């Protein structure tokens, strides 16, 4: 038990270790299943998606900026191009004016021509609202000029110009700007500056933006100087000023101009365009633009504009009108990434949690499993222990009840006591069964391997149930195939238990018909079984149809569940066994013998729905069964377990209301010949050999039953013949009678089955009696009636009709048949009485008779008890109280036959004493062999007194130590008569038998 528990503990520890390693492995899992980790991963995802968003947004911004740059540059270039085109044209106009106004004399251009020309070439100068020509007039020339043109020079404010050094009155103007004719361009601040700069450089110059006259649009004025022809090729500034004759100017209406330009480019998304004059970088002047307009100032692009005036610097600033639209793609992408990330994180988290949970559950289950297994073992142990503990007091109860029954009781009291005893016995049986089951479950059941006679065991089992079956009128029979060896090696107790159980069940559930136990070799039975199974399947339907009318080929003629066991099979088996007997017997010598055992009954059968749980413990076919028939339903389960242990299988075939057949296979080992003979000698009720050579005639209408009878007769060595009716039997006798001269031996015995006798009552009866009367001339056979049950009337009738000899009650058993035959034939049993009859106890008595025993024990009580027990076996007992005393008594030579030695003794314990005795013996033996042969011949061999240990602890180790020290056996204290007998018998039985033989 302790070991077991330790085992459980070990298992638990191992599981723990395993789970430890698993814990280590699942560190990652644990990490994943942490909530904090989930939060962190969500934050991480947030960060990642933010990054993605930023990145995508940046990309978009960049793209937007590129678009802006492209657009801005495009606009700037166009503006610049158009501007330069206009400037070029104005330049051309300047040259035109100088050519046709100054080189030609008189001038080829007047106001009208100029206006006409400029108007018609206006498309060339789309940016210019108008052009005009102003002549350089020095103050000295003013009066002359005013007179010549007929108007005075006016300032920009349209007032007559005050006196100055120089004037620049407009003389030609395009019609669009005709209002500036006669205005002195030098009077305007911007224009004057422009004019001065233009004539100094000789190039087109621009004013800073200002409000134009009339239109009040923002604009710039372009001024070109017009030189007279005598300008040197590489003039100085002064020479240029000298050569200047006038100025051609044009006003750029930048606002409308850019508007137009942008109009041409419309269709693109709205961008805000501002043009600045940045000549003075600290104070850029706006040339075009909507200051008020809301625009996206975050993103701007600046493009340089070169209008051909190196002094002035312009730039164009573009920006989007609208804010950058929120980038939905980036937003959704990052959002989805975020969501997916969270989902993935959550999935991992939940998966980890699930795995951790499952693993925890698994661990828990493991622990629970270990606990359950431990509980199961504990249960079995508990059962075993408790059953054992119950058995002890139960023995007391039963013993006392037996004692009580021995007293003189009134009939009522006796009835009560008997009931109590029966109940007690039932309880003991149940406990034994439970104990068996517990043992099987705890795997503590060990099978013996001893040689035993299968047939006698079957006979014993049958005799157990003979009373019951007779009461019920059920025929009970056993048949063992000839092929089955007489003696096999196995566990007779367990085999008997299985058979008893099956037959017990059958008897319980069978009200009429028969119970038939058959034993065949499995190998032999199998092929025919297979054939039969098929035919059984095919023939089932007709079987059912005919069942009411047909007599079946079974023991009692009633239908059995399994047709395989019918007589035909059986004949097959016998035939085959005859054929194959030689080879099989040789081949199987000292090998395993697989037997097939069938128990067939014609009982109530097993209902279909209950068939699958027949072998489940504590399950009966249905509750009504247990009500009607009692029992716990554990028997079949135990039987099955036992059969499994014996290396076989158990199964059954059943048909409700027809019967069931249980069959199982078992593996035994066959026994060597010499062992068989030994065993036969030791079996007390060995079959008498006196019947050898007798002949018998069996009269039986049913072949199966006849075969059973034949089988029993054969075991007694009687040759038997079968005839189906009495008539035929008479005929046989008649034949013999006629042939008597040939010295043919007549059957000595005539066995008549009761059924056959009754059926032929009318005629056969007559025949029989007449034949008996006539047949005085020769020795009449003895007539025996075989019956399962017989009424008194029938008995009388039988006696009257000649069966005076005897009636053998079924079930047939060899010993009973032998006894009856002995009685009938009058073969003296007296000579055998001495050998066969003495009961076991008497045998025991003689076992030690005349033997001198030594009991060594320091405890006087134990000594007395041991002595008492040994005396009972007929021994002469001497006692010794200590090891020393024993040594003294066992000084060689002594005449003790055996010694019982207590192990725990003060001073010198059993081990020491034994060692010393063995030492002494060895010396003595050496002496004998050395030369002193006289003593040796007397003792015939060596000194070796059997020493049996007596000890209270039954630990195996103690036993081993006993054997090691030189002891021969072992008896546990307190003495049980049985165990004592067993221990002693080992040493004295052979001698005892020889003794008894010599005596007889």
């Amino acid at each position, binding site marked *: 038990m302790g070991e077991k528990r330790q085992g459980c503990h070990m298992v638990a520890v191992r599981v723990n270790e395993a789970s430890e390693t698993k814990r280590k492995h699942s560190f990652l899992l644990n990490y994943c299943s942490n909530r904090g980790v989930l939060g962190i991963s969500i934050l991480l995802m947030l960060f990642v998606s933010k990054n993605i968003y930023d990145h995508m947004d940046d990309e978009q911004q960049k793209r937007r900026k590129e678009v802006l740059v492209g657009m801005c540059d495009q606009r700037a270039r166009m503006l610049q191009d158009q501007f330069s085109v206009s400037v070029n044209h104005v330049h051309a106009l300047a040259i035109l004016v100088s050519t046709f106004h100054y080189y030609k004399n008189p001038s080829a251009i007047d106001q009208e021509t100029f206006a006409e020309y400029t108007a018609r070439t206006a498309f060339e100068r789309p940016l210019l609202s108008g052009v005009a020509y102003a002549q350089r007039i020095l103050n000295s020339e003013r009066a002359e000029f005013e007179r010549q043109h007929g108007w005075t020079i006016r300032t920009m404010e349209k007032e007559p110009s005050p006196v100055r050094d120089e004037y620049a009155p407009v003389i030609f103007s395009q019609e669009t700007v005709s209002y500036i004719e006669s205005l002195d361009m030098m009077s305007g601040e911007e224009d004057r500056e422009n004019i001065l700069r233009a004539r100094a450089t000789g190039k087109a110059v621009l004013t800073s933006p200002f409000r134009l006259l009339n239109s009040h649009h923002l604009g710039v004025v372009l001024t070109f100087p017009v030189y007279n022809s005598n300008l040197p090729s590489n003039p100085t500034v002064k020479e240029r000023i000298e050569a200047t004759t006038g100025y051609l100017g044009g006003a750029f209406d930048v606002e409308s101009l850019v508007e137009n330009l942008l109009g041409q480019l419309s269709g693109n998304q709205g961008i805000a365009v501002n043009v600045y004059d940045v000549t003075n970088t600290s104070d850029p002047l706006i040339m075009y633009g909507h200051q008020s307009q809301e625009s996206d100032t975050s993103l701007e692009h600046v493009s340089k504009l070169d209008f051909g005036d190196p002094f002035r610097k312009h730039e164009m600033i573009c920006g989007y009108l609208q804010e950058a639209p929120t980038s939905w793609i980036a937003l959704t992408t990052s959002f989805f990434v975020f969501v997916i990330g969270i989902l993935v994180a959550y999935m991992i988290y939940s998966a980890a949690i699930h795995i951790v949970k499952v693993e925890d559950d698994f661990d828990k289950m493991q622990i629970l499993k270990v606990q359950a297994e431990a509980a199961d073992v504990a249960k079995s142990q508990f059962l075993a222990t408790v059953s054992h503990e119950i058995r*002890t*007091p139960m*023995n*007391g*109860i039963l*013993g*006392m009840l037996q*004692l*009580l029954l021995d*007293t*003189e009781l009134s009939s009522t009291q006796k009835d009560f006591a008997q009931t109590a005893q029966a109940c007690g016995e039932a309880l003991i049986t149940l406990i034994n069964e439970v104990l068996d089951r517990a043992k099987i479950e705890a795997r503590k059941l060990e099978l013996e391997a001893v040689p035993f006679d299968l047939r006698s065991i079957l006979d014993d089992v049958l005799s157990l149930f003979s009373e019951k079956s007779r009461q019920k009128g059920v025929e009970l029979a056993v048949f063992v195939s000839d092929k089955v060896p007489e003696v096999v090696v196995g566990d007779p107790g367990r085999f008997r238990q299985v058979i008893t159980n099956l037959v017990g069940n059958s008897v319980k559930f069978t009200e009429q018909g028969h119970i038939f136990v058959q034993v065949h070799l499995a190998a032999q039975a199998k092929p025919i079984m297979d054939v039969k199974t098929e035919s059984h399947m095919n023939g089932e339907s007709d079987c059912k149809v005919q069942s009411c009318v047909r007599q079946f080929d079974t023991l009692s003629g009633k239908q059995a569940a399994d047709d395989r066991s019918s007589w035909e099979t059986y004949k097959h088996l016998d035939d085959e066994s005859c054929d194959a007997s030689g080879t099989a017997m040789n081949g199987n010598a000292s090998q395993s013998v697989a037997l097939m055992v069938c128990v067939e009954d014609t009982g109530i059968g097993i209902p279909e729905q209950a068939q699958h749980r027949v072998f489940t413990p504590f399950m009966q076919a249905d509750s009504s069964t247990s009500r009607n028939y009692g029992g716990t339903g554990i028997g079949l389960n135990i039987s099955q377990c036992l059969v499994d242990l014996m290396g076989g299988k158990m199964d059954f075939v059943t048909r409700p209301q027809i019967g069931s057949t249980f069959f199982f296979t078992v593996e035994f080992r066959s026994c060597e010949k010499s062992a068989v003979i030994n065993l036969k000698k030791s079996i007390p009720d060995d079959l008498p050999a006196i019947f050898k050579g007798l002949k018998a005639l069996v009269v039986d209408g049913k072949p199966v039953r006849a075969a059973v009878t034949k089988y029993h007769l054969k075991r007694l060595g009687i040759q038997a013949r079968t005839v189906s009716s009495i008539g035929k039997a008479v005929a046989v006798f008649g034949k013999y009678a006629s042939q008597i001269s040939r010295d043919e031996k007549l059957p000595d015995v005539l066995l008549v089955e009761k059924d056959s006798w009754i059926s032929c009552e009318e005629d056969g009866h007559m025949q029989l009696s007449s034949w008996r009367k006539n047949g005085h001339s020769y020795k009449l056979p003895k007539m025996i009636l075989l019956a399962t049950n017989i009424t008194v009337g029938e008995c009388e009738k039988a006696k009257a009709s000649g069966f005076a000899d005897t009636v053998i009650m079924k079930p047939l058993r060899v010993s009973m048949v032998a006894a009856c035959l002995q009685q009938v034939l009058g073969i003296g049993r007296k000579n055998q009485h001495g050998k066969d009859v003495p009961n076991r106890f008497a045998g025991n008595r003689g076992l030690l008779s005349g033997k001198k025993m030594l009991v060594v*024990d*320091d*405890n*006087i*009580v*134990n000594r*007395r*008890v041991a002595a*008492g*027990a040994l*005396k*009972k076996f007929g021994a002469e007992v001497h006692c010794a109280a200590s090891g020393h005393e024993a040594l003294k008594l066992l000084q060689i030579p002594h005449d003790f036959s055996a010694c019982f030695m*207590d192990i*725990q003794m*003060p001073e010198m314990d059993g081990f020491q004493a034994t060692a010393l005795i063995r030492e002494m013996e060895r010396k003595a033996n050496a002496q004998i062999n050395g030369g002193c042969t006289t003593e040796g011949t007397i003792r015939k061999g060596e000194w070796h007194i059997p020493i049996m240990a007596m000890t*209270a602890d039954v630990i195996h180790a103690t036993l081993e130590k006993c054997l090691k020290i030189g002891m021969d056996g072992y008896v546990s*204290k*307190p*003495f*049980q*008569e049985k165990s004592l007998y067993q221990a002693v018998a080992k040493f004295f039985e052979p001698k005892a038998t020889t003794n008894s033989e010599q005596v007889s």
Partner: protein
Amino acid sequence: MLGLSLDQLRADMNRLLALLFHQGVLDEQFLQLQQLQDESSPNFVSEVVNIYFHESEKLLRNLRALLVDKEFSDYKKMGIHLNQFMGSSSSIGAQRVRNVCIAFRAACEQNNRAGCLRALELLEYEYCYLKNKLHELFQIEQQRILAGAVRYPVPQQHPNNPQV
């Protein structure tokens, strides 16, 4: 009337035995012992039991003497005595005495003085009980034999005659 008393006595005896079994004072071993008694040794049981009483009283005296010596209780010696006591008790089937002996020995092995004293008292009690009951039993048996002897004269046996 004599016959009746014989039956009466046998019934009394059985009742007493059953009681002792029920109480666990005796066990199967006592039945074994009874089985050893037959014509060849008719007083076997009482003889053995008397030896047992004799021995046991000696052992009990020794045990008490050993325990009374407060300073030097020789537990080893006590263990030997107890083993003796246990062996003889189990031989005659005195189950309860044996069980107390086991407990006593356990206490002894642990050098548990208090436990030993308690166990000794219990042992003495159990022993006395057993002794009384067995005496009673033998008395009845004696009477029964006497009663039986009247009806079926058998040679009178001397109680202290072990061998025939």
